[in-house]
C-alpha cells in the first residue's frame, strides 16, 4: 500500500518482486527490529482493512512518530533502494523509461 501510493506506475511484476525482496529482508532483520516491523505491519494491515484506513495509514507513515514511525519508514526505504538498484532507469512514479 505504501509503495502503491508512491509508485502508481510500477508494473505489477516489478511490484511483486519488490514485495518479495522486502519480505525476504524482513526475515533477516535483527530480532527486536523484526518484531517491531511485524507488529506495526499487522496494525497497518488492520487499519487498511477498515473503511478509509488506507489514507490514514499513509498519513501516519509520513509522520515522524518516534521509533514506531521508524518501522514503516524502514520497510518503505527498502523498496526505494531495490527499485533503483534493480531498474536504474525507472521513472519517479515507478514506470519504465
Amino acid at each position, binding site marked *: 500500500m505504501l509503495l502503491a501510493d508512491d509508485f502508481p506506475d510500477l508494473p505489477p511484476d516489478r511490484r511483486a518482486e519488490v514485495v518479495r525482496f522486502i519480505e525476504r529482508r524482513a526475515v533477516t532483520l*535483527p530480532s527486536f527490529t523484526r518484531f517491531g516491523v511485524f507488529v506495526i505491519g499487522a496494525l497497518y494491515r488492520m487499519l487498511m482493512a477498515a473503511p478509509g484506513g488506507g489514507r490514514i495509514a499513509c498519513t501516519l507513515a509520513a509522520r515522524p512518530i518516534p*521509533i514506531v514511525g521508524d518501522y514503516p519508514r524502514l520497510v518503505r526505504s527498502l523498496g526505494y533502494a531495490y527499485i533503483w538498484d534493480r531498474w536504474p532507469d525507472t521513472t519517479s512514479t515507478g514506470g519504465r523509461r
Partner: protein
Amino acid sequence: MTIVPATPRMDADVLVIGSGAGGATTAAVLAEAGLDVLVVEEGEWIEQGSIVPFSLEQMDRQYRAGGVTVALGLPSIAYTEGRCAGGGTEINSGLYRRPPADVIERWTRDFDIADLDYDEVVSIAGDVEEALDVGVVPGPSTAPSDVLRRGAERLGWQHSEIPRWMKYTNGGSGQRQSMTRTYLPRAMAAGARIATGCRIDSLEMGGRTARSASTTLPDGRRGTIRFGDVFVCGGAIQSPALLQRSRIDGPIGRSLAVHPTVKLAARFADELNVPDDVAVHQVKEFAPELSFGGSASQPGLVALALSDQWATFSKAITDWRRISLYYAAITSEGRGRVRTVRGLHDPIVTYGLTRRDRALLGSGLARLTLLMLEAGAEEVYPSFRGAPIVRAPKDVATMNGSFSASKASVMTVHLCSTIPMGQDRAQCGADSFGRVHGTDNVWVNDASLLPTAPGVNPQGTVMALAIRNARRFAASGRHRG
C-alpha cells in the same frame, strides 16, 4: 589457504572470534609467533570482485541483516556491520587515517591506559600502511571527489585527499587491500585455520576462566570449541553482546560511541555519479567536531536519500547520473548501549544524541549545503522530512530553520567504545592490553576497545592497537612449552 569446515568439536590454543580489522591482525600476529590459532567467522568468505561494491547484493551477502540495522533512539540511527570474512574491511570506504596523536594522549590520560606509547603506535601504523599499500589515488580523482575539493577551495576551507588501502595497477582500477587480501592470508600462511559460517553463541565460564565456546554450525547443529585463550573481535556491537551472553559483568556495552552523519544529494550540470566507489577527499575545516565527505551513490542509495521528502524530491531520481551523495559527520557527545535480552538472538542497540549533537548535525548539514553550492550544485536535496530543495545560498537559512535531527535520516558506520580499554575499572571493560577485567583468558581486540570515537576513519587505529595488544600477548609466552 586453510579454510576448514566448522565441526561440532574443534580446539585451538587461541580462538579468535571474528575476522575483521581486529581479528585478522590478531590471528596473523599470533600465528606468526608460532601459536595454534583458530579463527571463527560468522559470515562467509567472499572473493573480492565477485560482487558489485555498495550494491544490494553486497548488502545481502556481506552485511549483517542485509545492512538494515538500527540503533533505536530519537532519532534512530541506521548503522552497518560487516558479516563476512574480513568483516567491515570488505565493505567500507577504504579510507585510512593514522591514529591521531592528541586522541591517543587523551585516551591514555582519561582512561589510565598503561604503556600506550605513541611512538610504538606510529611504528605499528607504519607496518600496517606498508602491508595495506596505503597511498593516494594515482592520477586525477573522481568527479564526486573533486566536488569536495572545488567547493572547499572556493570557500577557503581546509581539505585533503585521504589515502586508501588500495593497490593500483597500471591503468587499472584499484584492488582493495582488505583483510581477505592481506592479514588473513598471512595468518593462514603461518598455520592459522579459519572456519566460516559458524556463530559463537556464548563462552562457557568456570570462575574467571573461559573453558569453551558454544557454537552454531552452518547446518544448524550445535558444537563446542575448546581453547586456552579467546580473543573476541566481533566488532563494537557483537563483542559486548557475546560477553553479556556469557554472563561476564562490568562496564560492557554501556558506552557505544559513533560518528553520526546526515546526508544530502546534490545535482550538478554534468554527469558525475560513480556507483561503485566513494570520494577520497574530506573537508576538515571544522574538525574534529565536523567533517564532510562523499558517500556511496549507487542509484538505489540516491533514491533512498531522496525518499525522506519524496513528494518534492522524486523528480530528481531520473537524473541520478548527475547526482552524488555527501555526508556531514560529527563527533558526538552522546552515548549508546548494547543490551542482550534472554530469548532474543540479536542485541538491542540504543543511542541518544545530546542537544549539542543535534545542533551540530544541523549546522553540519547547512555548511555542507553551502559547500555543494560553491562547487556548482544546481540543486541540493537534504535528507530530512520537510526539507526544501536548496538552489542558492539564500535558501540555506530556510533549510536550517526547518531542520531538526528527529526528522533526519541519521546514519553511522563507525561504531566503537563498547568495551573501553584501561586500568580504570569504573569505566573500562578491559585492561590496557584488552584482557577483560575479572577474567584470566578472555581478551577483546577490536573497535570496542577504543575509549571514545576517534574523530577520523578508525580502521587504522583499530589495527594498530590490535597488533600492539597481540604482540604483547605473544611476548608473554603463554602456550609455549
